[in-house]
């Protein structure tokens, strides 16, 4: 699996910038979305290989829902989803796994660790 095209979904602009900078060494095409609606459009149009997705995009935690949608839609189910969340509870990790996430990182996260995780997906 390649990691040539990566979509970054987070409602905080500076966190998108952080992730963009973190993943720069991969020399991949980096796409950004501030919410799940735009993110889904990008998923359908550009078919990224990896989605780095903030779970708590809103109070409704619709990041998790986007993850489920990606995994259950046959055309996008091959996309690897890395979930980022502020919640660090066991049940959240479980929910993330059930939603089909490839990896689960809690904020604040180490950029080196995120890079390693995404690199690992391409190996």
């Amino acid at each position, binding site marked *: 699996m390649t990691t040539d095209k990566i979509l970054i979904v987070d409602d905080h602009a*500076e966190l998108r910038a*952080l992730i963009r*900078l973190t993943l720069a060494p991969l020399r991949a095409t980096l796409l950004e979305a501030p919410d799940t609606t735009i993110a889904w459009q990008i998923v359908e149009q550009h078919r990224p290989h990896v989605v780095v997705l903030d779970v*708590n995009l809103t109070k409704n935690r619709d990041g998790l829902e986007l993850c489920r949608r990606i995994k259950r839609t046959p055309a996008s189910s091959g996309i690897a989803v890395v979930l980022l969340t*502020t*919640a660090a509870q066991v049940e959240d990790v479980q929910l993330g796994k059930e939603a089909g996430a490839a990896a689960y990182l809690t*904020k*604040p996260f180490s*950029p080196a660790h995120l890079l390693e995780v995404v690199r690992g997906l391409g190996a």
Partner: protein
Amino acid sequence: MVAPAIDESQRLRALRRLGMLDTPPEERFDRVTRGVARALSVPAALISLVDADRQWFRSVCGVDLTETPRNVAFCAHVITGGDLVIIPDAKRDERFTHNPLVAGPPHIRFYAGVPLKTLDNFPIGTLCVFDYEPRKLDDTACEVLRAYGAWAESELNAVEARKAFTAAVDTNARLGAVLDNMSDALIVSDADGRIETCNAAAEALLGFPAPELIGASVRTIMPEPYHSDPHGYERYIADYRARRFAHGECVRRADDVEVAVERRVSRVDLHDGERFIHVIRDMRDRNELERLKSDFLAAAAHELRSPMASIYGFSELLLNRVLDPPRQRELLTIVHNQSAHMTRLINELLDLARIEARAGRAFDFRIQSIAPVIDATVASFLVPDKRSAVDVHVPADLPSIAIDADKLQQAMTNVLSNAYKYSPGGGPVTLSVMLDAGHLRIVISDRGVGMSAAVVNRVFERFYRADETTSVRGTGLGMTLVREIIENHGGNVRITSEPGTGTEVTFSLPLAAAA
């Protein structure tokens, strides 16, 4: 019959309590002695009060006496005997042959007396009749004497009885007022599980009016499994005795809804049997509050972790990667801004938590003039670059008002800051004060981007931000704090806004604010 021994000091205290000794004659007593003398055709009748060492006559009829020493008194025998005493012929009764009242004037031969008792049952005197000839008293005459005795007794006790009645009514009313002003519901049930008493909070919590509760079985208000079990009450008592009551219980309301309560049951022994006192606290609000608190904590943690993620992540990149100086500077700026944002967030969270935790006690209300507070607010407000100062309109001669100047200044500053932030195209920001129907209104308006009705509805929500795209984000707590501050002043905050036209925020503060 042997009368129970009487504690003489208590008896004397009861007598003195009546306050009758050595008082002038009263017709209500004389009517009794006159009546009994006539009814029994005897020459003399007395109401005698037996003091420590004398008997003093409250009323006399047919004889001229005020008091005699106790040691010669016939009445003393009635008091110790506790019942009607008849002496048909004192001269032939060895107890009285040598009594000076028999041997000398007035030469008493016949005596009959009934004891008179206080409300607390102490014999303190007698109603007695006597004659100078021996005689007998038939059953009818005994009845008559007893009846007049009862009348004399009620006259003696009339004042105390009235006082006791008034006190009982008063105590009842006081207890009722106390019970009805309890925030917890109170139910008292008897040994058979019948509800005997309930308070206003019980009516409100259970949805039954008092007349429907009183006399009903406690089972009526018990949750399942007790409610439908014909032996629910017995099971409930068994569970009570076994202390098997769990916290987080329920009661059943009139509308069959079971609501979460905390119930404490205690048992008392009254002279007519045991009672169970149920104190029932409505836990719905508390549970709701717990939920809000935990939601708030979760939201606060989320809000704090986002800037923390930036600070942690960018600083790690700065440490681990070789970046050119402009890039370094860019990342450091983000770290710096995010630290500032986090500091603001923590401060506002603490302000809010302090205000809420202390429920108004964090405020220092002083009656003062509002003009200097507005001057201070505007003077310390940092107007953004290239923007005109706040346009202030404060009429002269405003009445003084109870306010916490620091808190009010914080509220005005938050709104002014929004007014500038959301009118990026310029345009004046005005602050006006006016009087209206017992209220002092502070109106802050701008001609900025305005908000839709949907946004206006959410601005007081914690962590809600109208605009996520501005470079320096707010904390989403500013307007929540504003509302907390103004509502703690007994006032309210109103927002009128229209997209593209501007926003007007009005604080209404009651002039007679409860400080």
